């Protein structure tokens, strides 16, 4: 067995040696042949590469020519343009273009949707001369020369999230009666931006939509002082802590409907700056407004609205003070208003030329508890007082800087309609720029003797200025 195995191995070795020897004798011829084959392959590959390079260079040259033409014409590559060659250039250009676009977009930082809110500050100083003191006029300000910072207002606004925006207006001003500075949050509200059905909900502290100028800040009024009817019937700006919903009626005609509820409205509570002030649900204010608009011609416009306010169980806003006792206590507050504004706003040059006539009529029908112990003067009613008041103004702008107008306002006291006040106020405005404005106004005030107050004359010089962002949006149009 072992011998057979040994013979087998020996035979295999001999055969292997013979084959190896035979291969060794054929080596030069085989090598040449393989060399030739390799050379041929190399040449073929070289030719293929040359052809491919030539094709690629031609394609790139065509691409460069096309790009040169586009650059000369200032045209961005069409997104749907077919590629000239299977090349990466169009992709690279698009990537570069996208990067540049992103850098440009990143510069746009002032929209309210950015993280930092838009912040602005308004300063308003009023200098005046009054012919009579407050004992004769009932005004908060003394007679003679007077100067005070009526309003120093800091405002900020930003998007809260994709569904709402928010804003804050903080106001520091001199107290009209004492001269002491006061600080308060005039507005701090959130407003939805994406409710369906053309609805907008506003909640927090805000100026409720009643009338035309009730929700306009003092410094943005078209004249120096708030008309007396708004000051007396609403109590200044229509500030409220509550909620308000607005619906844009889906029709070709502009119709806006608003309804709101809040625990205060204007100056109807003893301490308006106290956000924790409690009022029972039966004592809430309810208000509403409907407004519409007509293009009379391309240049003439008419806006009109009706408003209503009701508080079934109001807080006492301070009635007639007689003999040290409050004569009246307001029990129920009812207020209705009608307003319109006719404007001439020429399309072509409205920055240099415009005219506005605005009027607002308010009817107050409040109910009072009459203190039987108070020495109430004979006023001809038994607790329900119906009073009327209105203001009407016209203003004409004849250049980018200059405008002038006239304001007439009259009001019957909400507690005694025989107590009437009339005021006549010509005014002239000089706007150095959008952000810097001076206004001079003369006011003659006439009062019926029943109030015990006397006529007076006053001159006001108002200076209002703005730094930073400032916009109250649609309501300030």
């Amino acid at each position, binding site marked *: 067995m072992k011998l057979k195995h040994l013979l087998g191995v020996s035979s295999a070795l001999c055969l292997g040696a013979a084959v190896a020897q035979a291969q060794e004798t054929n080596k030069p011829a085989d090598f040449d042949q393989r060399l030739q084959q390799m050379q041929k392959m190399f040449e073929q590959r070289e030719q293929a590469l040359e052809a491919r390079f030539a094709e690629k260079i031609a394609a790139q040259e065509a691409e460069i020519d096309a790009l040169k033409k586009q650059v000369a014409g200032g045209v961005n590559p069409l997104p749907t343009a077919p590629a000239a060659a299977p090349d990466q250039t169009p992709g690279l250009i698009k990537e570069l273009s996208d990067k540049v676009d992103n850098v440009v977009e990143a510069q746009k930082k002032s929209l309210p949707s950015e993280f930092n809110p838009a912040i602005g500050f308004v300063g308003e100083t009023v200098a005046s001369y009054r012919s009579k003191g407050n004992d004769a006029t009932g005004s908060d300000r003394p007679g003679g020369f007077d100067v005070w910072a009526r309003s120093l207002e800091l405002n900020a606004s930003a998007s809260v999230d994709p569904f709402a925006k928010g804003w804050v207006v903080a106001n520091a001003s001199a107290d009209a009666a004492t001269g002491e500075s006061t600080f308060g949050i005039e507005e701090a509200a959130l407003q939805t931006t994406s409710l369906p059905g053309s609805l907008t909900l506003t909640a927090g502290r805000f100026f409720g939509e009643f009338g035309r100028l009730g929700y306009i800040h003092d410094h943005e009024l078209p004249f120096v002082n708030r008309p007396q009817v708004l000051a007396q019937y609403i109590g200044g700006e229509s500030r409220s802590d509550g909620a308000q919903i607005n619906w844009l009626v889906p029709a070709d005609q502009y119709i806006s409907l608003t309804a709101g509820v809040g625990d205060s409205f204007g100056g109807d509570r003893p301490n308006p700056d106290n956000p924790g002030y409690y009022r029972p649900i039966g004592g809430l204010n309810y208000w509403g407004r409907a407004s519409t608009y007509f293009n009379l011609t391309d240049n003439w416009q008419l806006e009109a609205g009706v408003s209503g306010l009701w508080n079934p169980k109001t807080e006492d806003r301070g009635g007639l003070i007689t003999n040290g006792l409050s004569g009246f206590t307001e029990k129920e507050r009812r207020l209705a208003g009608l307003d319109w504004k006719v404007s001439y706003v020429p399309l072509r*040059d409205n920055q240099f030329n415009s005219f506005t006539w605005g009027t607002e009529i308010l009817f107050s029908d409040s109910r009072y508890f009459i203190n039987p112990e108070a020495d109430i003067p004979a006023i001809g009613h038994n607790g329900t007082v119906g009073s009327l008041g209105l203001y009407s103004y016209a203003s004409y702008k004849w250049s980018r800087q200059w405008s002038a107008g006239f304001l007439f306002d009259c009001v019957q006291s909400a507690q005694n309609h025989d107590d009437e006040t009339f005021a006549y106020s010509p005014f002239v405005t000089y706007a150095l720029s959008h952000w810097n404005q001076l206004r001079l106004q003369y006011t003659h005030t006439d009062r019926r003797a029943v109030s015990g107050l006397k006529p007076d004359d006053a001159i006001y010089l108002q200076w209002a200025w703005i730094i930073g962002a400032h916009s109250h949006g649609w309501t300030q149009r």
Partner: protein
Amino acid sequence: MKGKLFLVLLAAAWLGTTPGNAAKVRVVATLTDLADLTRNVGGEFVEVRSLATGIEDTHGVPMKPSFVPLLNRADLIVLVGFDCEHAFLPALLEASKNPRILVGQPGYVDCSKGIAPVDVPKSTDHSEGDVHPYGNPHYLLDPVLAKTAVQNICAALVAIAPEHAADFTKNRDAYLAKLDAKIAGWQAELAPFKGTKFVSYHEHWPYFAARFGLVYYGTIELKPGVDPTPRHIEHLIASMKADHVPLVVREPQFPEKVPALIARDAGAKLVKLPIMPGGVPNTETYVAELDYIVHTIADALRQ
């Protein structure tokens, strides 16, 4: 049956739409040039309304409440961008209560996308006037850049109505080809006046000047949105004389008195040029507006 018909009609009235318009893309453009470009791309598949009529200042379109229902129903708002419409559009969008066209939504078509602005201020301080923080927004007076706006409009239309993509693309290509031919003609017409200096009331013309080889010398306004002072007028006249500035451009929405005075005292020609279609008679389309501008400048400089 009558009751059902009544309900259907009521619903149609409620939605403020008519069946014939239901399939069309409802587009509101802020200015007339964008409206014209959109009509050219959208063709029969779009219903386009413009807030401006053409004679307004691009920054001073009155905020009419009658615009609000239009915007409330719009599928797209097409705007210039670069803050051009800052004085009226944000408040109108707020009042329109249409979430589809708010900033960042697909319906908000900012045509400045892809355009490199010029005159980007280093500071947005108001000491520089009513500056545009993102740069000069009047790029539509350069017809080559207007082609980018056309492409942005086309992309927005394709995105909102992909079933008409082929039509929009075809219309776009046809309009771009038409513009290319017109651009060549306008460039040829103004070629002899390369290097000519001119002033204008507001800074409307830097893109136009660069495109056609003119030199934008300065503005009559002291700063954007701020009227000139007597000293500024005096300096402007003196420097125009020294530098031989032959042309004063008045945009129609600005008073003629001061530009006429400057042109007279500086020995320059005064021309009135629209800043969007409809700004002067017979310029109702974008091409007609550019035709008018180029012909008027060339005629004035030939004399």
